């Protein structure tokens, strides 16, 4: 699989996003977890997904893993995980839990983009880092500059998508 330079940046990006969506998601999820998310635990699929088959058949046991250990197999060039997991999983694995973004509350709310940027840095800087990404820089546009909400592409509680592709069919990269 071809790995694009922006995916390097994306790796850092994953961490922040994780948390936001854990609580929010419920229906319409892609591999929606069956049990309550309060038990959410990095690497322990069954904590949320119960007995549902989540990982490929011969995948090693992940229960005690964190993002660093995932990376021993999943590199940028091999078994790249970009676009394979909702963003909150990456956040969880990087030890950024639900409450780190949503706060301790019974009624967690959707995050604003400011909260993403607080950890991940400004989108202008991000756009500079991804300027050579093929087929185009995903973090700036003639329409919105660098102001577009991260969550339009980098979904935390659902499958990430390329928002621009709804018109720009040729922008076929993967969103982590």
């Amino acid at each position, binding site marked *: 699989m071809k790995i694009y330079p922006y995916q390097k940046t994306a790796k850092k990006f994953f961490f922040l996003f994780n948390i936001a969506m854990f609580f929010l998601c419920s229906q319409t999820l892609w591999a929606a977890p069956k049990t309550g998310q309060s038990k959410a635990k990095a690497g322990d699929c069954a904590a949320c997904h119960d007995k549902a088959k989540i990982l490929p058949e011969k995948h090693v046991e992940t229960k005690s893993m964190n993002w660093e250990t995932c990376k021993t197999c999943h590199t940028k060039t091999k078994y790249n995980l970009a676009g394979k997991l909702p963003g909150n999983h990456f956040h969880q694995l990087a030890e950024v839990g639900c409450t780190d973004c949503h706060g301790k509350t019974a009624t967690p709310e959707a995050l604003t983009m400011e909260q993403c940027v607080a950890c991940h840095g400004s989108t202008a800087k991000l756009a500079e880092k991804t300027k050579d990404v093929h*087929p*185009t820089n995903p973090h700036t546009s*003639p*329409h*919105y*500059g660098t102001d*577009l*909400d991260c969550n*339009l592409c980098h979904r935390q509680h659902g499958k990430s998508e390329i*928002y621009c592709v*709804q*018109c*720009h*069919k*040729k922008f076929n990269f993967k969103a982590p």
Partner: protein
Amino acid sequence: MTNPGDEKLVQNQEEAASKAVNSDRRSFLKTSLLAGLATASGALALNLAKPGTAEAAGHKLPKKWDETVDVLVIGTGFAGCAAAAQAATDGAKVLIIDKMRTYGGNSIINGGVYASSGDKFNYREKFNLGNDSVEQHMQDFLKGGDFYNIPELSKVVAEGATDSLNWMIDEGGAVIRPALLKTGGHTAYRTHPAGSGSVYVNALKRISEKHGAKYKLSTEVTWIWRADADPASPVLGVAIKRGSKKENIKVNKGIVIASGGFSRDVKMRAAHYPYLAGENWLSTNHPGATGEMIRYAQAVGADTLHMNYIQLYPYSDPDTGILDTPALYPFNGPGNGIVYVTNKGKRFISELARRDHVSFAQIALGPKGKPTYTIFSDEMVEKLGGTRKEVEAGIKHGRLIVADTIAELAKKVGIPVDALVETIDRHNKFLADGKDLEFGKQITKAMTPMVTGPFYAVAQWPSIHHCMGGLRINEQAQVIDIFGNVIPKLYAAGEVTGGVHGANRLGSNAIPDCVVFGRIAGKNVAKEKA
């Protein structure tokens, strides 16, 4: 010649007829209303939708409202943002909503060309590009629309264009490019380029937010509330859907519908212009460009017109149908000497022809004629309102093909070399002689012959772009009902309305239409009594 007595008689007859219609209608509505009350408790909302459809099901007026605002604006494109900006400036509490997850609708993916006979920088005089006037702009409006336009509406736009452009520059920080273009169907250099419609949307949004307008996205209107169709009966509010939440918003002063056209509404296209039916047509529009707001307005009595006039943009990306930056150059460049050619290397129409003519000239070439090309030279880039950065990006994306000579360009694109070289040479001669012997294009001194490279080619093909028809409004942007009465407190502006452009909109007349009428709607709705 008629004498005054005859006129009076005619007037009396008209009044009598109008009274009879009103009285019939009222009694019909009263009967319907009573019938409704007999079967249901609580007041019924006006409902002209087809019985049995989801839109007609169980519409009882809300007993309580979840939110109350002075002014509700529906749609966050040019017209909506302009209405919000003006109404908020005039002191109204404004909520502006959009069903999409991003603001700007089609406007923020628009090419940013704005027709105005003047501007605060006096570019036309500065660049020595000839004469123009409001009257000349107005005449082009009408001729370009085959005189189907409601002239009073076109006039409002031609007259208001310059003031609204300057307002966006002065109040909103809009930055337009130092160029002035002559484009298809316009008889003067009056098209102001800005690179992207986002320049204007963001300027309008800044003005509106400075004055306290609140934006809510992912908020979809599902009904307009009006008790009955009595001419004195105002719209009361709307039902909305936000995620799984359903709420009712009450308006004190009124509603401005600025929800855009219906180019992506396959069903409506089929209903009004069967030639454009089906999913296979590509479009320059975003997926939210559907016509439900028109139907909701019709369901409370609004009249529509010109629904069958739907425009194709002749220069879209042939693969995707979108109007990306390279797709703007063919529209922007005729006044600077660009040339349109078939894939056989021949010209096929005057480059200053209107969009509908260019589109159908291409379609007439047949499927094998796809795509056609615009050829231009490096010297023209800034003159046609482009930038080096855009050209580089166009080459990177494979949308612009570049070569040092016309022959090499033809080879790279796959056009017969001799034919293209001959066509460009011949066109250069037409420019030198001041006469287009092939298509009678009006030659100007601003047109540059293609002698010095590098040269560029961009592929083009028509895709669905703009709906000329929509809700019927008057010069005050008030929505008119099917009996010719104003629907109190209901305003509309921009592509959702009809009549401004007639049968065919001239390119770069849309933004002034949206901004001028958006402001009028905003100004008038802010003046309504709460």
